[in-house]
């Protein structure tokens, strides 16, 4: 079955089927393997005769490699080769690039760029030799500080006259914010094992989007795609950092091709931090103009981000600002500074993860000026149609999320006045923020096979990066085929399977779920043809097929032969005709220490509308993860770059502070069921990223409500809170 979705699918087929497993909070089929350490991750395959490679970086911020003295290490124990092939890549590919990232690696653009690979019999030998490899470079001075270079406008949306609206406004806010760079900080480091045999390359790797990664790797190496097979059934976290092929996979492949032996390359934690995508730091200005009742007449959001020269990605800070709130006079402008820090790319909800929280702080300031409850102010400013392009909204649970979330949290609906509650040394406060994230779907294929014994197999090169893909694809197929998910074998992460969407941009569930759905529709059609009944007249449940006038066991109908169908989903006009996004709301309670400015989140509620919920357990888990990132984003996470040579100084998990267990209190998640037929044929939208789009703003607003410190710089570390805290 092929569907290019040009119009909404409001049939809600999954509500009419009989199995009753869609949406159920089922556990992950692969969960036991993961918690017992028996799920095999990329670096863990036992491959006979495997050599070990270690990437060699150079400590210059820009310049050329003049020479690499292989003889400096070739005599060392166990050393087999130094790979300095000009096909080595110095950077990772951007998400969905589908082509080689920047080559050759010997042209250095940021501090710590890998330029060669040392291969030895053991990892220890390779690591030692990597430190001894003599590399001659010519360095040049380049800008590393985004505050000190000229910027170029990337994108502008202008309607009406914002300056005039600001001047005429009854209440206005004009504030600037900064956010620091972030790392994806996935637990599993980037790793690959490459095997080259009979002109074919097989790579076990940790990657998010195999269809694109295969093209990127083939292009990097000068191979045909058909010569490359990627295997990535388990991924120990991606968060954007494994969207594109990265240096270790290309290096391992080249080494395997040169040496004719398998080669494993695992990045050190420091290399992951220093060479994989960062989220750009941002400098933002938010302007809000409102009338007496707090209704927006003007909305401005400007941002400066950075990237390496030549990189196409610009952190899309303004993405949801385009449509979240009303205001007829609008100015949105994104500028980019070209500097020599490692590549900026997709890290956990690019754009909204840093763009919504600033708007949400500004909205809070506006609520205070207008003397309106912050929840009410937001409700008053939900636009009727997309403010820039006039498109209708397909589905939107923003108002419900604000209302239901407020109820669940115990929000007191009143204008806020800070410093109202003190418990010993601690100021206590609460804050709210809206959540928004643009919806996306991408082309995806999946094959579903009914086996003669009445079980089924789902196959796609889709990945599960910890999100629950194995579970939800089994549920979609089970619901459609009348089988329990236990009877469905979901096979992922292998380019030998039909090409899925990959995991990224929260699109995996809706895209690949739709491909599986279409394959199952194809199977239902084939079954109906055998029975000579209309396919919408079939009821499939518990391995039986029922129709008006009869019932047969599925096994009987299959008659000893497998039956398969491939689903092929393509986005079409339906996603163009509508403004499709996921929405929600965050409520946070914090305690801020009067003496030290330390902030601890005491509780947090998130209410989210994500279209159809495919699995209530894994969807909730995604939201919990997002809200945990909100805490890190708000309070601790920051990439620190040396001002002189631009190197990243805090490049391990001891010094780059993601939240620890003790930082994360009970988090309450409300999933607001909705159906969005424009978003996908299974009426699902994305969930993975929404949970971190705005929540740091709720924490910021709670800090202000607690102690009166309005902090304009993220993360809101103790020193920044103290500096902003009124002293009396």
């Amino acid at each position, binding site marked *: 079955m092929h569907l290019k979705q040009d119009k909404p699918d409001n049939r809600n087929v999954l509500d009419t089927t009989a199995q009753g497993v869609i949406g159920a909070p089922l556990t992950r089929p692969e969960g036991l393997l993961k918690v017992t350490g028996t799920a095999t991750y990329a670096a863990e395959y036992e491959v006979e005769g495997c050599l070990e490679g270690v990437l060699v970086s150079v*400590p210059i911020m820009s310049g050329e490699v003049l020479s690499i003295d292989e003889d400096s290490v070739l005599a060392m*124990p166990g050393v087999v080769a130094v790979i300095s092939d000009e096909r080595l890549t110095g950077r990772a590919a951007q998400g969905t690039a589908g082509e080689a990232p920047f080559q050759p690696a010997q042209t250095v653009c940021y501090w710590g760029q890998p330029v060669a690979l040392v291969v030895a019999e053991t990892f*220890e030998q390779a*690591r*030692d030799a990597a*430190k001894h490899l003599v590399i001659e470079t010519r360095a040049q001075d380049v800008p590393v500080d985004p505050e000190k270079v000229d910027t170029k406008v990337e994108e502008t949306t202008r309607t009406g006259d914002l300056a005039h609206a600001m001047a005429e406004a009854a209440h206005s806010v004009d504030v600037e914010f900064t956010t620091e760079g972030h790392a994806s900080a996935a637990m599993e480091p980037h790793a690959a094992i490459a095997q080259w045999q009979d002109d074919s390359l097989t790579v076990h790797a940790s990657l998010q989007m195999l269809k694109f990664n295969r093209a990127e790797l083939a292009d990097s190496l000068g191979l045909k795609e058909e010569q490359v097979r990627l295997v990535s059934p388990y991924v120990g976290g991606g968060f954007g950092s494994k969207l594109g092929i990265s240096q270790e996979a290309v290096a391992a492949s080249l080494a395997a091709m040169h040496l004719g032996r398998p080669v494993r390359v695992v990045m050190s934690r*420091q290399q992951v931090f220093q060479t994989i995508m960062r989220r750009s730091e941002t400098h933002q200005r938010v302007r809000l103009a409102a009338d007496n009742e707090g209704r927006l007449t003007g909305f401005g959001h400007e941002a400066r981000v950075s990237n390496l020269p030549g990189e196409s990605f610009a952190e899309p800070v303004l993405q949801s600002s385009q449509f979240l709130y009303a205001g007829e006079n609008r100015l949105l402008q994104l500028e980019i500074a070209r500097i020599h820090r490692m590549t900026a790319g997709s890290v956990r909800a690019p754009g909204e993860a840093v763009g919504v929280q600033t708007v949400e702080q500004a909205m809070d300031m506006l609520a205070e000026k207008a003397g309106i409850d912050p929840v009410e102010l937001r409700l008053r400013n939900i636009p009727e149609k997309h403010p820039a392009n006039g498109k209708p909204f397909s589905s939107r649970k923003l108002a419900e999320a604000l209302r239901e979330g407020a109820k669940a949290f115990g929000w007191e609906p009143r204008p806020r006045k800070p410093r109202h509650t003190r418990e010993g*040394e601690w100021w206590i406060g609460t804050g709210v923020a809206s959540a928004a994230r643009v919806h996306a779907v991408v082309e995806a294929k999946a094959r579903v096979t009914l086996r003669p014994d009445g079980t089924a197999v789902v196959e796609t090169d889709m990945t599960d990066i910890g999100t629950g893909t194995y579970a939800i694809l089994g549920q979609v197929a089970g619901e459609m085929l009348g089988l329990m998910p236990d009877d469905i074998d979901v096979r992922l992460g292998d380019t030998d399977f039909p090409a899925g969407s990959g995991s990224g941009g929260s699109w995996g569930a809706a895209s690949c779920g739709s491909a599986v759905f279409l394959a199952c529709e194809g199977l239902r059609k084939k079954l109906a043809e055998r029975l000579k009944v209309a396919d919408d007249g079939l009821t499939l449940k518990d391995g039986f097929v029922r129709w008006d006038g009869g019932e047969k066991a599925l096994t009987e109908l299959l008659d000893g032969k497998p039956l398969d169908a491939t689903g092929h989903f393509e986005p079409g006009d339906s996603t163009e005709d509508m403004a499709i996004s996921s929405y929600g709301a965050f409520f946070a309670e914090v305690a801020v*220490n*009067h*003496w*030290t*400015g*330390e902030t*601890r989140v005491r509780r947090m509620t998130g209410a989210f509308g994500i279209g159809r919920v495919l699995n209530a357990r894994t969807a909730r888990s995604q939201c919990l993860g997002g809200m945990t990132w909100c805490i890190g984003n708000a*309070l*601790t996470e920051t990439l*620190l*770059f*040396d*001002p*002189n040579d631009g*190197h990243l*100084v*805090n490049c391990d998990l*001891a*010094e780059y*502070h993601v*939240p*620890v*267990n*003790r*930082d994360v209190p009970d988090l309450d998640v409300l999933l607001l069921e909705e159906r969005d037929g424009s978003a996908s044929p299974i009426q699902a939208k994305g969930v993975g990223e929404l949970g971190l789009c705005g929540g740091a703003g709720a924490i910021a607003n709670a800090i202000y409500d607690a102690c009166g410190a309005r902090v304009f710089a993220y*993360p809101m*570390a*103790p*020193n920044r809170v*103290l*500096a902003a805290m009124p002293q009396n």
Partner: protein
Amino acid sequence: MRPFDYQRAERLAHAAQLTAQSDTLALAGGTNLVDLMKLQVETPQVLVDIGRLPLGTIEAEGDGLRIGALVSNTDTAVHPRVRADYPVLARAILAGATQQLRNKATTGGNLCQRTRCYYFTNIDQPCNKREPGSGCGAIDGIARIHAVLGASTHCIATYPGDMAVAMAALDATVEIASENASRSVPVREFHRLPGDTPERDNVLEPGEIITAVTLPAPVGGTQIYRKVRERSSYAFALCSVAAVIDLADNRFTRADLAFGSLAHKPWHDPRLADLLIGKEPSLALFDKAADLLLEDTQGYGENDFKIPLARRTLAAVLCEATGVEA
């Protein structure tokens, strides 16, 4: 990591003899040393495993307590006498690292823990502590976690630990043995200031092994360890205060204070006790104590915040100990 020889010391004298050799380091819990070896910050040719030496017990010593050098941080923190008589030490240890690390880290190893300075741990950056004469990357770089007291133009690194800060407040003593001799050094004098030899963190000489830390007889009082940090666990202090405070007739009779993450050593300034003892607690008095403590501070931009933070943390601790309302 450079290849190295591994030797296991069976006796203390043997360990001392071995570690007297050049490029030789003692290995206890390894939680710091092995990480630094992987980064090639430490490149010993020989590692002497002292893990089997009989230094793993906690025993009464007079009215005090003797904690063997190989007692794990966890065992020290949960020891009934430590919890009853030296709660500031138990609290300081539990404020540090993670459970897994505390299970492996030892008393002696923790005292020898090296700085977290970002430039020290990156061998492609200049660092006078790692490579004397190469310069200091931190002074003009990212100095967020660096010293505001007692630094030099050669080094602004801090001693990052928690345990030793409490030991400094308690006026504990480090027992040190070499092949033919032994000596005792107060914890307050064990770590050094960087001066022009920042490569030396402490007063240990080659061939010297820490055998124990001795705590004096318990003094009671209110014991507090206050650690300020961005996240609530597994983070080094931005600033910490260890305090042993006693009052009689609403006047200070004891005010033993030590400060962490402000200097190259746990910072103890005897003038604070002199100022406080005999006086009635008040916010004004706490401010004077902070003035004294912070008389000679120097910030390096990014870490300027530590100066007011130390003032406020000291006040917080003294308020908590004395009941003075903020």
